[in-house]
């Protein structure tokens, strides 16, 4: 019977799911007092819906050309006008949300775990491991990320996947730093000491007791990063290094619209508005999330 004392349950921190759910409930309650933050989340939710139901929402096909209808100004049939191939710009923007969300999620899925592992390992083990990993982090942090992504994408050949990899390569350091700072705090808590006391292996402590505690703040940081990811991806697309035509990538649409900017402003302006709104929504939502979940930032 006395064995029961030694089971995991006594020292196990609350599960990720329950803590995320709790944070989420607090967040929802506090969001009521932050109309701006709420607006950001609503826009993001709408964007996800638009991406999922793109085929139902888009009034026209985003790829099929209709040269007879080229460069039509915005009207009731073509709310955002048509481009030089007569394609409905609104439909292309709607399909473009898929590319944007795919980029943002892919980069986050690569950068989040990578940064988390590097940061947690550095923070928990300390000493030389910490020094080495943090030096590497500092060095990557001092790289000009957009330029490096540009060079990578140029060497690997243009395409959405190379753009995603290129952005991810320089995107992990902020996450790693954050995860390290959190790990430094968590590793001194009683429950980690207890886990160590009853003989849990370092790896087990790392991934079951420390890493999960860092996840909420990593998620906040990822949300804040998403606006930057969107802008970098759009820049790469604008330079012809992102998704290739005829894919309706917003940055590439601006680039092709640039040729007509003086007479047909809407071709370049509309995709830019889409980028602006999306990245603004991510920034606002990330800000609100940080204020809500992190009491240390609430004062500033």
């Amino acid at each position: 019977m006395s064995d029961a004392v030694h089971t995991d349950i006594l020292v196990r921190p609350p599960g990720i799911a329950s803590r995320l759910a709790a944070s989420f409930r607090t967040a929802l309650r506090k969001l009521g007092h932050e109309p701006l933050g709420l607006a950001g989340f609503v826009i993001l939710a709408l964007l996800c819906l638009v991406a999922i139901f793109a085929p139902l929402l888009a009034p026209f096909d985003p790829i099929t050309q209709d040269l007879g209808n080229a460069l039509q100004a915005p009207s009731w049939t073509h709310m955002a006008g048509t481009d030089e191939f007569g394609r409905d710009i609104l439909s292309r923007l709607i399909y473009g949300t898929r590319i944007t969300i795919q980029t943002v999620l892919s980069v986050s899925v690569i950068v989040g775990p990578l940064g988390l592992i590097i940061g947690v390992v550095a923070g928990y083990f300390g000493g030389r491991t910490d020094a080495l990993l943090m030096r590497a982090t500092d060095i990557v942090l001092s790289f000009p990320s957009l330029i490096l992504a540009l060079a990578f994408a140029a060497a690997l050949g243009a395409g959405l996947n190379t753009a995603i990899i290129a952005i991810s390569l320089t995107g992990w350091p902020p996450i790693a730093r954050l995860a390290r700072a959190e790990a430094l705090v968590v590793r001194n808590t009683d429950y980690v000491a207890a886990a160590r006391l009853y003989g849990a292996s370092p790896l087990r402590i790392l991934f079951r007791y420390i890493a999960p505690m860092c996840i909420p703040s990593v998620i906040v940081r990822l949300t804040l990063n998403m606006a930057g990811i969107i802008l970098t991806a759009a820049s790469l697309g604008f330079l012809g290094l992102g998704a290739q035509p005829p894919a309706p990538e917003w940055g590439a649409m601006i680039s092709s619209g640039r040729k007509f900017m003086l007479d047909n402003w809407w071709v370049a302006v509309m995709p830019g508005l889409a980028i602006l709104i999306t990245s603004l929504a991510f920034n606002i939502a990330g800000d609100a999330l940080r204020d809500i979940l992190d009491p240390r930032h609430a004062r500033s």
Partner: protein
Amino acid sequence: MKELSVSELGKRILQLIVSLFILLCVTFVIGRVLPADPVGAIVGELADPATLAAMRSKLGLDLPLYQQFFVYLTGLVHGDFGNAILTGNPVAADMKLAFPATLELATLAVIISTFLGVPLGLIAALFRDTFIDKFIRVIALVGHSIPVFWFGIVGLVIFYAGLNWAGGPGRVDVFYEGMVTPQTGLLLVDSLLQGETEIFWNALSHIILPALILAYAAMAYITRMTRSFTLEQLNQDYVIAARAKGVRPMRTLTGHILPNIAVQLITVLAISYGGLLEGAVVTEIVFSWPGIGQYMTNALMIGDMNAVLAGTIIIGFVFMLLNFLADVAYALLDPRTREATI
């Protein structure tokens, strides 16, 4: 204390050198290892095998990788970035012409963004949580979220094509081009040095729009950081003491708070400056600005990796140098960090 700060400086310099070396390793991998067929990219896909082989040995691609890297490094140390496909000139010579243009644009932008961003941040902090604070926050957020290259296009459509307030693309009107012999390479400075006021005003009308647009994007970050630095200071005892003894609010701000946040601001400004250099790369193409950005973009279109990598290295180097200088300035100027290193 002095000796310690010297060793601290040595550590920073070492870190800068290591970072630079790693940047060169990365560009080497990008330029020589990643492309499937760097030779084919130069001579074209239809070249016969003899030409291909000749080109391979001319580029040194038949050597083992570590030797290639050594050759590459030796070249870079001598300022040899290879030749550009588009112009046929050595890339280094092209860069010498292009870099001042980018530098001029980014410098003007960082000046503008400082003079807008710092006061806005101070105001936002003083009027914390009021309508003014929220308004400034929204302005800054939009600047943070806007794609600069797109904003450049919109700016050109409105202020050049529509209102004709700003000069159009390029550094000066075609009419004035080449009339100022480059001394510093900075057109605004050169034209003044040579007493060509007419050209100076023309160049100013051309640079102001791209500089303002870049500045707006950078301003967001500066405003935000100034605000949070100031808020930190406002709760400090010395501010309360100053207020209590009747120092006027404006005097508290300029005499007490600003000096205390100045050092932190230097770091922020250095980071913004680096960011502006990067931002300039995507913006220049919109304004036909003959800087590194346009040069790199044109090189990208034809897959000229020499030119792309040279731009990457130069901007990367300046970027790292700015980070380094900011760190050093921080350590030198802030008495608090100085005491911490004793």
